[in-house]
């Protein structure tokens, strides 16, 4: 269901007028897209990538070869590391993303891409649970998250997370 909600939100944000038919398969409820002109597509990232192409928004998949690879990498990361992560893994995920995002606005540099959208949906349940101190500890992730949730048309099925702009805890103590 989660994946279908994401795809539904994505369709909306891409402004796709003709809705697609979906089902899910297997224990993990992997989404399947049934299309009229071609075989069914399986997998969240595959379908999402397809929708972006259908909407003629190739820039969301990255402009250069390098950016394309980064988008693919973070989409895969979302599926393999963030989805169903164990609570012990959360720390590592936040820490790694935080240092990655230190000198970047979005996951693939300075351009907003599909990777941001899907990572945002996937990591939302983790960010929601963070206390203010943890949000501050992972400042770069928080900043990125706040950008994305305010990016036009992204936030659909998930509630907004409050991000404080002023620091509550002074750095150095933690």
């Amino acid at each position, binding site marked *: *269901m989660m994946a279908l909600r994401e795809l539904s939100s994505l369709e*909306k944000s891409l402004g796709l*007028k003709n809705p697609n*038919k979906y089902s899910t398969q297997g224990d993990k409820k992997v989404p399947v897209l049934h299309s009229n002109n071609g075989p069914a597509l399986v997998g969240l990232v595959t379908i999402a*990538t397809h929708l972006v192409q259908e909407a003629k928004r190739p820039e969301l998949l990255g402009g250069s070869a390098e950016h394309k690879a980064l988008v693919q*990498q973070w989409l895969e990361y979302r599926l393999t590391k963030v989805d169903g992560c*164990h609570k012990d*893994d959360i720390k590592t995920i936040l820490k790694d993303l935080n240092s990655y995002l230190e000198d970047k606005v979005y996951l693939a540099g300075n351009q907003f891409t599909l990777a941001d959208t899907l990572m945002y949906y996937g990591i939302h349940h983790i960010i929601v649970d963070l206390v203010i101190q943890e949000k501050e500890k992972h400042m770069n992730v928080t900043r990125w998250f706040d950008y994305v949730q305010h990016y036009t048309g992204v936030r*659909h099925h998930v509630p907004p997370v409050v991000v404080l702009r002023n620091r509550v805890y002074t750095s150095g103590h933690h």
Partner: protein
Amino acid sequence: MKLFVSDGNPHCVKVLAVLEFTGVKCDVKHVNHEERVVPYLSRPALPALLLPSGTHLFSPNSICQYLIELNGQESSDIVNQWLEWEATELQPAVMQALHMVVLQGKGADTPRVLRGPLSYLDQSLSQRTTPFLTAEMVSVADVVLWAALYPILSDSSLVSGNQTLQLWFERVGMLAACVSAVQTVLQGKGLKAESLKTYLQRQPTTHHGQGQVQGRGTQPCNSPEGGGDDDCVLSEEEIQSAVVTWGKGLTDLPMVPERQHPILPQEGKRNVLVTSALPYVNNVPHLGNIIGCVLSADVFARYGRLRGWNVLYVCGTDEYGTATENKAREEGLTAQQICDKYHAVHASIYQWFQVDFDFFGRTTTKKQTEIAQNIFWRLHERGFLLEDIVEQLRCEACQRFLADRFVEGTCPFCSYPEARGDQCDKCGKLINAVELREPTCKVCSQTPVVQSSKHLFLDLPKLEAELEQWLERSTGSGDWTANAKQITRSWVRDGLKPRCITRDLKWGTPVPHPDFSDKVFYVWFDAPIGYLSITANYTDQWEKWWKNPQQVELYNFMAKDNVPFHSVVFPCSLLGAQDNYTLVNHLVATEYLNYEDTKFSKSRGVGVFGDMAKDTGIPSDVWRFYLLYLRPEGQDSAFSWVDMATKNNSELLNNLGNFINRAGMFVSKFFESCVPAMALQQEDKRLLAQVGWELKQYINLMDRVKIRDALKCILNISRHGNQYIQVNEPWKKIKGDETDRQRSGTVTGVSVNVACLLSVMLQPYMPTVSHTIRQQLNAPPSVTGTLLQGTGNFVCSLPVGHHIGTVSPLFQKLESEQIESLKKRFGGQQPKTTAQPATTPASDPAAQTAVNGADAERARELTLAVAEQGEKVRTLKGQKAEKTVIGAEVTKLLELKKQLSLAEGKDPEPVLTKGKTTAQPATTPASDPAAQTAVNGADAERARELTLAVAEQGEKVRTLKGQKAEKTVIGAEVTKLLELKKQLSLAEGKDPEPVLTKGKKK
């Protein structure tokens, strides 16, 4: 550009093969597995590609895609799909298989985890007419999948069947690029490569990968919101040792002796003295007070007794001070009468909450005077008291000095006329009461006069060095909560100042010094001494507890606002008295509990107060459970009625209660109330180990007073238990042949023993429920003491042939109407905040789309609904459900499809005429906001939410049915589903009737 690879790592085969295949120019550097090439990742990740921009790629598949892209080839949908499948489905299975085969030396056959993915790949290949996965030509997908499978498929012993797959594998393997990549990384040896083994040994056993490959989808319906708590990876040894423990039974474990008063420290025992902050007598405690001190301390004391420690838990009401005097004036009683009245109120509240004090006393006693004066004199003799003159306001009419909050006047800074004695509400500045202009007494409105008065001060600076030494020892060796340490540190860091210990009051412990005969001790000096005097009222031998730091461990429980008095001020009094006092070893402080996102407020009538909890009709144990479940450990938390109902219904009723009840019911229904014989199989042993692991965690956490976290372990155990019953289906097997019936017996026997263990672990949290379970199971009395000894012993405590009692349900559902009315009752005059997301149609782009093209929106919803319904039908068919059932669902599906066609603007068949005779919605309760919106017109946003809600609820019902849950449970969920469907119809502006009648006929 630089590519980093390591020996023996199959992922490096992928990238090297693709690199050679594309002919892209790139340096290759061989590093070892531990090398952290990617600077932003905390664990080493290889292969890694350093891009021209200076960024690193660490995903092997993305590196391959990048190389292909540089070569001018775009990846298609189908290539993406295979790469996604490789990363999410194949890779976890391959890693697990390699782990088993290479490291554990198992399997002469295809490892089970790989069978699914391999046959899927085989089928996909056979359905194609092309020699490769995606086209006539080899693609990046072929190389990536081939490399992933190389170690497994190159070993002929592990391959069985899957001929198309074999042919494809050989075809790809003949590429020169593949041959040389394998040579470089695995020395052409596949599984037998030493380097592969080394590589695998360095890989952390990730939690997912192991747990989730089989785990998903088999979770019972009651899994928690978080999910994914497939926690521990159990080793063979752990399982074996769990089995050994299980076999020990109850016999050779020590008994816990009955409590005998007075409890005194004993040689060779762990002597634990537990106190909770003394509640102030003139207030009725609210839920926050209760969880912050008495309840938390009670759970820990009960736990300690179960562990066989020698525990004494004392508490009492703090009764002296201005506030009491004032309350007495308000109610027209004497201070003593007020204390007597409210002491009884407190005592009865705590009794209702089942707080099991060894003694609940009070501070207005002779012992208090004796001990406080003794400490005072000792401090005085040793020169730790200072004298100083203080200027204070005194009201001659009332004959007393005015505490800051009993005086009002004009602010000296902003001339606000109603400034308080301590602070101006207008300008916010702090005020010294004597600086107020035109001060008046708040009680009699007379003008007070300034009078100088001599007071005594505790010389904290003189004791600072000794305090710091002690603090270092205590916080270093004890379990101080983080907030307690932090607050204490900030007090000490800012430097200590002398603190006044006397007050010009009547209602207090008199200062024995002749120069101060009209004064009493200030409460903060006096109140903590209450712990000692209350103990002294309990036993004459109180000094064995309080002047015995060698034998006694002291735990103080409190909310965080009380920390400085327990960690700095009171220890200084005791250190200065130099009488070998027992000082706190473990200071356990909670954060605050809020009420529905606001504060508890007696004056506004907001929140639940101790005396009202029992009027709600919700059992004391459920209150305890919920308060402990949200115990503010680490951060503030908030009491919420809706959440309380949810936790009760999901965790207590569906998870814990459901498991314990089923386990007991199986014994009584299938085995004539006698625990059946158990022949443990691997799966049962695994459960024993899993439960044993959670028990160990529980003990670990409880020993460190992580009360809330330990509660989660209990719920995890029953979750494991439910899953175990679900998978093994003892209610089906009991009807089978001899082997099946034996299996049913084993599962039932193990389950009922888990239930018995749970009853003991629950005891600190829910004493009545715990007792009821033990009664229902007729558990031997010794279980309470024995299962929690040492690091925990999950033994078979209800052996074969044990006769259990009568089993009945433990919990009741909390209905939403009940909760709504309670919420209103305790909400005060606050405007009710509804939990509706604040989406205004104008600002929400989604809603705008809906207005512009309602049909597209509607079609999207229907598409989802069709997908859901289609899935449902397939599932039913797969389960070989009854034809009528399938038929009904197919009808629904067709109906949905018709509606979808309509929404898409296709052939309008006469579907709509069906339900549209009178489009007047049934009378809906006016209070239901959903219904109201619906009446106002088709609200697309709302409808979309409801569509999803219906789909989810439908899924829930199916799951329950699949699990053969109790009829009443299913019934309740079906009702909810029908209600949602009705709301959906309304939101879509349709007549809800047809849906309702459909659901009702049967």
